[in-house]
């Protein structure tokens, strides 16, 4: 062949054309799949919020159930309800926490779940750090603002078999019925080290941990505390 594939011109030309083709192909896929991805992400968030109160296995029912049950509320720094502005669903807690840390004003979302008997469950979204990456969760409190009705946790990159166990039913199930406020009215909750700690059913503020994943469990503890303290003023106002 006449073409010299080792010449500089050919090499440069090849690299440029290849880059253009690949960039175009990737941009096109990313753009065309974006609406589908956003929809999946929103659906996943709704599923997690609802799961904190009662799990729904049929994905087709999520949107309807969410619209029927959930009231979205935005609260500010002092626990007052804010209307207008960004909707609770679109608020990113990660960014709001960052504002809080920097000392400026912030808003946080609360999801209120209406049960069939008219009682309300208050779902606090949580966000924190695990061992490798971010972890988050939704914890539903009864209207005494102490007792946990249910909890879901999720993570981005915790180790499978260790930290990733915070996602499992056995771990999340233990939170049901536990209390995060002690008799003197302040926050108290602890995830213990390892599985199979004796006498836990008599301990209202303690649950089993995961062997080999103490740092992830500490992360869950921290985000629970941080979350509760951010909402405590709002809870006082509602009560």
């Amino acid at each position, binding site marked *: 062949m006449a073409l010299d*594939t*080792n010449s500089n011109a*050919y*090499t440069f030309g*090849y*690299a440029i054309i*290849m*880059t253009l083709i*690949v960039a175009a*192909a*990737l941009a096109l*896929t*990313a753009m065309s*799949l974006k609406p*589908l*991805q956003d929809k*999946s*992400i929103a*659906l*996943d968030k709704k599923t997690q919020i609802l799961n904190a109160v009662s799990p729904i296995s049929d994905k087709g029912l999520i949107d309807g159930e969410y619209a029927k049950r959930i009231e979205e509320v935005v609260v500010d720094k002092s626990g007052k309800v804010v209307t207008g502005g960004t909707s609770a669903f679109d608020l990113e807690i990660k960014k709001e926490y960052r504002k809080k840390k920097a000392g400026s004003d912030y808003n946080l979302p609360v999801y209120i779940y209406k049960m069939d008997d008219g009682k309300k469950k208050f779902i606090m979204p949580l966000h924190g750090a695990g061992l490798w990456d971010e972890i988050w969760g939704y914890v539903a409190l009864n209207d005494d603002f102490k007792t946990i009705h249910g909890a879901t946790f*999720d993570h*981005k*990159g915790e*180790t*499978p*078999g*260790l930290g990733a166990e915070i996602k499992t039913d056995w771990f999340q199930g233990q939170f049901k019925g536990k209390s995060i406020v002690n008799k003197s009215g302040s926050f108290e909750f602890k995830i213990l080290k390892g599985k199979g700690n004796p006498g836990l059913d008599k301990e209202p503020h303690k649950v089993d941990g995961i*062997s*080999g994943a103490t740092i992830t469990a500490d992360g869950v503890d921290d985000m629970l505390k941080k979350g509760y303290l951010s909402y405590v003023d709002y809870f006082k106002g509602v009560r």
Partner: protein
Amino acid sequence: MSQVAEAAVQTKEPLFSPKNRRLLTDPLDDNNPITIQVLGICSALAVTAQVKPSLVMALCVVFVCSVSNLLISLLRKGIPSRIRMIVQLVVIATMVTLVDQVLKAFVYDLSKELSVYIGLIITNCIIMGRLEAFAMGNKPWPAFLDGIGNGLGYGAILILVAVFREVFGAGTFLGYQVIPQFIYDLGYVNNGVMVTPAAAMFLIGIFIWIQRARKPQLVDIS
């Protein structure tokens, strides 16, 4: 792949000729990417704590390895030799990104669980190794088969290691309890070492030992 010798007749080769079949079966045992070529160890240590991620990782590697082998083989005559590694890497990264995007759009749950591992495929040395060693010098069809074979060989070891680690480390298989409760009641405890990556290193070492003890011709005396 060495002594296939003079049989290079000009007649059209059948799609699954013995030579092509060996491309599929060799990497499963005698030329296994993990135990013989010692490639892809890093991801074999990282993802094998449980069977499910290993299974999906294996499938993704089979896909990425075979398709990028095919593409590179098609392009092999036009790739400028000085930037061939970069071209290979671009092809791999593109395939992996496409897989990731598609998973995110259609099976979000799965993609959430695997996001870290999918990215890891780009750095999987097996894929690059096969592109450089095989696809650059062979026709598309054999290259495609070689990709599938090596993906499967890698996946086989991954799943084998994961089965041991999950069963002895957590007492489960694919998330289901397989070690019955009464054994725990008798005082059995899960092996904590098994959930750490170090256990994968021991297991792979033992596999290599068994394989070479069984087939002395694989022992490298150098």
